[in-house]
């Protein structure tokens, strides 16, 4: 016990030291009590690619009690892709509001089927209850939230069982809900990875032992887009929207208004292929423009092993920037949005290149110390199997970069608490304020490891604001709403989105750290419908619900 106290004291000391050396308020996390859950990959001697890809997690308020609940998807037996036991069940954990969670999976009807990878949350039918889309290997599932604690699998009825005409059943790893045509209904963009079949799985090895094959051994596939018809059904518009033309090995998607024209665009990170940037043409179609805008490749010309992605404004110039994770030795690229010119990669010039030593998966751009500057978090763990000579190197510690301002970041992982010193084969990460204390927490998954909750216990006496948007003309979640916040000494930008990182879905509420300012002078909301709304003199330190006028 004394040892633990000593470690805590040491970490606190390191945190203070970090404050002195970096000049930023310390970021501190600790492992909080988490529901009992293990992400099962269906481990086998022979390695199947989906096994290293599992781990999606979502934080969302399924029962509208104001508390974020946790939903985790799970693997299955391999190569059968069957959930043949409770250990493979997807799980929904209700937040009891006292730091504990209750497993409500069976009541909710969310145990799931097949080998699931990712999850995306959104209220697609605007009924005020969050629905769930699960991305999986050859099987996706749409659960409608019935509003009484139960969900119904409506995948088939919704028209989402649609094998690709050329590639057959697709393997989806993630998705985002986005109202791309601004008709007030959330559409669905599904990220598909590679063509895969257990029967033709190539055999590869590392260090003399069977291991996962490099993505080059698999054929890329297109992503899918489903237009919401408003009657509970969707139309596959992958081809007519222009999305299907781009073949990739999609890993994650970020929806954001990169051009600042009021229309949501999409950035897709691809594994070993150039990234895709789909610019919204405002007529139901997209133009792929990653090369044109300078985000297809990193500055050293590499098509990296793109993993997770988040797009938010790190320098508060009103344009969303891009933070992408990738493989060891590739860095985790940070693309700064310059507007019309395109993007410039600032990974090295910003100091974020310390990510070279890690393989990142799910990631997020959040202000963890509430100082008014958004920081970077990446869940880390190597792709390969943790066996043989790799046993010691596959589990990795997670990484946090504190935003120092002026496009500079400092790796503060080692001073952010013992929880950050713990290694794991991390995959999913969902971000949200689980205890409504104004500090953004992180829920993490590990392959064949326990679910973790990193409680944000950063000590700085900074203020904050959480904004829950409720659309009336826009989609009810308000997804896509851009928010400008003004305090006495700063202007900040953010937007409503649940699609964050890899395979994961984060808090719908938009978080702002306010530093020492307890009053927001002006809060402007640019709703997807085109409605403009401004609130004046908003008090800090509250969860503010804003209804579209």
């Amino acid at each position, binding site marked *: 016990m004394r040892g633990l106290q000593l470690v805590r004291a040491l970490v606190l000391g390191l945190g203070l030291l970090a404050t002195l050396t970096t000049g930023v308020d310390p970021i501190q996390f600790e492992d909080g009590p988490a529901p009992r859950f293990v992400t099962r990959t269906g481990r086998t001697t022979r390695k199947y690619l989906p096994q290293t890809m599992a781990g999606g997690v979502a934080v969302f308020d399924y029962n509208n009690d104001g508390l974020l609940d946790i939903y985790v998807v799970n693997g299955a037996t391999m190569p059968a892709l069957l959930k043949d036991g409770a250990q493979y069940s997807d799980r929904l954990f209700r937040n009891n509001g006292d730091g504990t969670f209750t497993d409500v999976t069976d009541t909710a009807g969310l145990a799931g089927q097949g080998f699931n990878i990712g999850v995306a949350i959104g209220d697609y039918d605007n009924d005020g209850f969050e629905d769930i889309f699960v991305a999986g290997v050859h099987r996706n599932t749409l659960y409608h939230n019935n509003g009484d604690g139960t969900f119904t699998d409506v995948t088939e009825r919704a028209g989402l069982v649609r094998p690709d005409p050329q590639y057959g059943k697709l393997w989806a790893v993630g998705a985002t809900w986005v109202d791309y045509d601004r008709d007030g209904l959330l559409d669905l963009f599904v990220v598909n990875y590679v063509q895969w079949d257990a029967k033709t799985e190539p*055999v*590869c*090895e590392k260090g003399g032992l069977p291991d996962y*094959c*490099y*993505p*080059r*051994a698999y054929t890329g596939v297109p992503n899918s887009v489903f237009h919401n018809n408003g009657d509970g059904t969707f139309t596959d518009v992958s081809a007519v929207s222009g999305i299907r*033309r781009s073949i990739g090995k999609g890993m994650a998607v970020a929806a954001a208004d990169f051009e600042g024209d009021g229309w949501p665009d999409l950035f897709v990170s691809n594994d070993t292929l*150039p990234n895709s940037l789909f610019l919204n043409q405002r007529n139901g179609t997209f133009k792929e423009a*990653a*090369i*044109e805008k*300078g985000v*297809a*490749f990193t*500055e*050293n*010309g*590499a*098509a990296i092993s793109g993993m997770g992605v988040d797009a938010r404004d790190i320098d508060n110039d009103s344009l969303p920037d891009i933070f992408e994770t990738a493989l060891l*030795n590739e860095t985790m690229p940070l693309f700064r949005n310059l507007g019309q*010119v*395109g993007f*410039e990669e600032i990974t090295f010039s910003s100091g974020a290149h310390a990510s070279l030593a890690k393989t990142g998966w799910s990631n997020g751009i959040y202000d963890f110390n509430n100082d008014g500057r958004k920081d970077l978090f990446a869940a880390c763990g190597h792709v390969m199997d943790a066996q043989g000579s790799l046993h010691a190197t596959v589990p990795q510690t997670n990484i946090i970069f504190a935003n120092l301002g002026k496009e500079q970041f400092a790796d503060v992982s080692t001073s952010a608490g013992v929880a950050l010193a713990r290694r794991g084969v991390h995959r999913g990460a969902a971000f949200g304020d689980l205890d409504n204390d104004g500090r953004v927490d992180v829920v993490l998954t590990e392959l064949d490891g326990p679910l973790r909750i990193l409680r944000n216990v950063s000590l700085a006496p900074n203020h904050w604001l959480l904004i829950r948007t409720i659309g009336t003309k826009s989609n009810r979640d308000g997804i896509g709403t851009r928010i400008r916040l003004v305090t006495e000494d700063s202007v900040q930008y953010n937007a409503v989105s649940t699609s964050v990182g890899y395979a994961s879905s984060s808090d719908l509420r938009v978080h702002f750290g306010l530093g020492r300012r307890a009053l927001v002078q002006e809060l402007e909301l640019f709703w997807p419908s085109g409605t403009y709304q401004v609130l004046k003199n908003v008090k800090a330190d509250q969860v503010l619900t804003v209804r579209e006028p």
Partner: protein
Amino acid sequence: MKLQLALALAVSWLSSADSYSQSQPARSAQNEQTAQEVTKQRLLQVLEQDPNDKKALFEMGRLMVEEGDFVSAAPLFRKYVGLSPAEPGAWAYLLRCAVGQHDAREAADAQRQIERLAPTNLALHAQAACWLAGYGIPEVTGHEFELAMSLAPSQTRSGALWYSRLGQCYESAQDPNRAARAFQAAIDLDPDTETHYFRLAHLLAREGKAGPASEIMASAVAHFPRSVTTRVEAGSIELESGNPERALEKQQQAASLHPKSPGVLLLLGRIRLTQRRYPEAIATLEQAAKLAPADAGIHFYAGQAWMKTEQGTEKAIEHFKRSLELDANRASTYYWLGSLYFHRDHDYRVAVQYLEQAVDRAPELEAAHQMLIQAYKRLGEDAKAAAQLRRYEEIVQQRAKVETPE
């Protein structure tokens, strides 16, 4: 005449094949162009006097094909085969014109004629299959490729060169399966030439097939146990497959045969580069450069190593420029020079000069297009950025056409 034409075709093709494996000093393009113009004038005069002069028709058509002017060349060859329909060499050039103009019907017709007139002529069929590679005429391409491959069992050792060339064509056309089959045929016909193994192994490694690539190199090492080059290539293959430790094993084996070989040092430098041990990589590659100052590859990697260090930009630029002096055709050298000027110095004007060279030489180098477009934009040259983007999009469309079966 028939034999002569087929021979000329084969010689011209094989001489171009050599340039794949050897870095040639840049020829004086201007002199070449002038000589070509003189020849064209002379041929025009001949054709004015006798529009049916077969030799002039053929030569003129060939020059047009070399210039990529298939529209002008096609009528000349059509006329030629009208006069002399039994000459497969002329049909082959007509096929080339059809391919260049994406005329699937004429390509199919020319292919049938070649097959009818010279069913067992490997030179012609390998050439035709090569020309068809990656041009989006899948049925004709498939048929011609299989025809060329079917001739392998009846070939002697010298036939290996054709299959090696065929493999390179399909590798360039991003058709690795056909390329691998052609390279394997080259090995089967001529197991005593190291480069055939190297080509197949590199292809497999690039396709992520590390195991089969290693196996190919293991058989090469067994066949050439005293060859330093083979050991170095085996190490290189391991490096490409993402196994620096195994690459180091091969490098050490090579070093035991010839420790001061520049190739051995180059491999070690590349391994250290992969391992991000940059000071060691620099020291090794500088040593290699001293031993082989005229090796463009060594300077290229030395530039790469220096580029990774904070203060190494000037040295990197020096090495890359030296590499270009020795091999003006390596697109990636232009790319890295452009990248250095773009990112380190923000000298977009100079960056553009190098990046333009990179995309000219390797239009498939997508990263160079991205940077070039960005450089134009930073210079405020939006029209050029837009033009470059259009050029890139044309390349993508062309590739999509090739990859999508009709």
